[in-house]
């Protein structure tokens, strides 16, 4: 793209120190550096990268950022609307949320909580809340922010609560973890299958290639959701959350590998005829060395780009399956499971905040698409 402008300067041009230095830098740069330089020009992709890193950071520190135990249910506080933080009161800066007041429903005589403006719960940084494992190692109960002096059942509900009175904000944070990492796990599995089968297909050609190509075509011409549904529904009910998690990962990568296999095969086919591969062959390098030392590095960037484009598809798959109730099962929390609550139009019209998990889903998918686009452009030296 625009890097080419640097090299386009003919050597006979008046030697500008800076240009010469840039040219030397360009000539000595590794493939990865070149890709990175091209990638940096793609502003939207760069922003997307930051967004994705932030999302994964949230996923890792979800419990630290959460304010309320995402699994704690309390029937009395079901469907509390989102509570805004009030930053000022009559004494100046004093962030607070309103406390809850129990009100007996005049018709059903059930006790239900509603916000009580007369009581203020101060919002503070680094407060102690429910206990969790930070990074799976340290047991702690410190949270980035939260309320102080809350009575039992009281807390802050930034995005409201669901039917069982669980805090939606905290649940979305915790769901980020499963939704993002199941995508990652699925992509790793697809990548393994795709590189293996695509590589074999591209390297050996002949009938092996033919068979693998037909398998890919067959897989791609089958409607995926009914297949996934069939497989997912067949998972034994007795399996625990972790077993189901891995089974779902395998199911969604069963179709996902085909795209990656195509990319890898295409690259192998193109590279097989390249001079440097022939040269390596002639100098007696073993096949393994040719593949891993010479061929693979020259298209890692393509694989990375294809991977980042495959990730959003994985995330959508998991979300769809869980949304249908065939994916992960409670108590696991994922975006799909949260959106399941929003399925009923009657419930939704009373508690529209249940649709909020759609926002992170859309954001992440959008970010991964932009990132993948940018990476693909950057990986292509002729782009």
């Amino acid at each position: 793209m625009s890097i080419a402008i640097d090299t386009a300067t003919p050597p006979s041009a008046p030697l500008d120190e800076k240009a010469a230095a840039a040219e030397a830098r360009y000539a000595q740069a590794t493939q990865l550096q070149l890709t990175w330089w091209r990638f940096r020009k793609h502003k939207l992709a760069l922003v997307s990268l930051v967004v994705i890193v932030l999302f994964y950071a949230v996923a890792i520190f979800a419990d630290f950022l959460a304010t309320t135990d995402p699994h704690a249910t309390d029937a009395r506080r079901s469907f509390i609307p989102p509570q805004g933080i009030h930053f000022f009161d009559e004494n100046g800066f004093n962030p607070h949320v309103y406390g809850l007041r129990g009100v007996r429903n005049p018709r059903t005589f059930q006790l239900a909580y509603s916000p009580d403006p007369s009581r203020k719960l101060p919002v503070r940084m680094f407060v102690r809340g429910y206990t969790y494992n930070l990074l799976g190692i340290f047991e702690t109960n410190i949270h980035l922010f939260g309320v102080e002096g809350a009575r039992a059942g009281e807390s802050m509900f930034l995005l409201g609560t669901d039917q069982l009175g669980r805090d939606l904000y905290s649940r979305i944070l915790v769901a980020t973890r499963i939704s993002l990492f199941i995508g990652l796990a699925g992509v790793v599995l697809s990548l393994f299958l795709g590189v293996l089968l695509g590589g074999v297909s591209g390297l050996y050609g002949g009938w092996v290639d033919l068979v693998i190509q037909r398998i890919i075509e067959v897989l791609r011409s089958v409607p995926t959701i009914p297949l996934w549904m069939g497989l997912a529904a067949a998972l034994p009910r007795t399996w625990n959350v972790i077993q189901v998690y891995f089974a779902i990962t395998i199911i969604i990568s069963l179709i996902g590998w085909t795209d990656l296999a195509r990319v890898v095969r295409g690259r192998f086919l193109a590279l097989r005829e390249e001079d440097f591969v022939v040269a390596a062959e002639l100098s007696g390098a073993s096949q393994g060395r040719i593949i891993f030392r010479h061929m693979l590095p020259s298209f890692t960037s393509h694989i990375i780009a294809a991977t980042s484009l495959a990730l959003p598809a994985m995330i959508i798959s998991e979300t769809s399956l869980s949304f249908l109730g065939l994916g992960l099962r409670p108590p696991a929390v994922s975006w799909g499971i949260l959106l399941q609550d929003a399925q009923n139009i009657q419930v939704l019209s009373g508690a529209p905040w249940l649709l909020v998990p759609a926002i992170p889903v859309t954001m992440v998918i959008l970010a991964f698409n932009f990132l993948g686009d940018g990476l693909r452009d950057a990986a292509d030296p002729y782009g």
Partner: protein
Amino acid sequence: MVIYLLRRLGLALITCVFISIFTFVIIRLPPGDFVDAYIANLAASGSSVSAEQAEAMRREYGLDRPVVVQYGIWMGRVLKGDFGVSMVWRRPVTEVIGDRLWLTMAVSVSALFLTWMIALPIGIYSAMRQYSIGDYIFTTLGFIGLAIPNFLLALILMYLGFRYLGLNVGGLFSAEYAQAPWSLARVWDLTKHLPLPAAVLAMAGTAQLIRIMRANLLDELRKPYVVTARAKGLTEMRAVLKYPVRAALNPFASSLAYLFPYLVSGSIIVSLVLGLPTVGPLLLQALVAQDMFLAGAIVLLLGVMTVIGTLISDMLLMWIDPRIRLEGR
């Protein structure tokens, strides 16, 4: 051309066999065989089945024979149009599915046409006016369309329709036609209800096709023959529409083969949200209740219909593109 056609036909057959094996696996996957499930189902409703009866049923369905033979027996029945009996509905599977399958196809196919109708003009516009405000708007919209899963879009539309217009946007028929026999009025009613689910389904595919069309046409527009056409004084419209668009249309048609399975797939989940009387909700119910003959029949029929749809789109492609038609001559 004949070779191409035969190759496609062969591939379609292989795909159908693959789908049937897959379906068979789905039917067999739940623990225990279906007679166990059937007995459990009956027991739940109060009646009981003797051991002899169970044994007779097992023999009838060949459950005491090796798996391959079982597959053969099952396939033989399916080819004769006998998909077995739905356990939950206690009626033949074909009866339960009824015209839901055709409605599924109606939704998918209308989504396909909608995709074409929207993507083609916008794609041409975006390529002709590259980097214009309109191009940026469509590109952004396209990306958003790609990023929102269609069931979410359906949910949001449902909510907005319910909240601000006070109407239920779901369903394929008005209340008075839901159970009515087919008539012209009912077909008209269906036509009125189709656009919304079709639009929801078409969203992502349209976004993708606009991008493909734009990229292809941009490549074509840079070619010398377009410059020649312009130099000869052809109007811009004619210079673009006459040849470059036709050349760019080719990959457009080939992507159809991938688009159709995607649309059928999407129609399942969108139907669930919008409450459409397609096979989608039926499939979910059947899977949850482990009514495996019903679920299997739906997966099989959907798969085969998709393969046929893909085959038709391949033939369409052949008709459009002389390069394929002349291949293998």
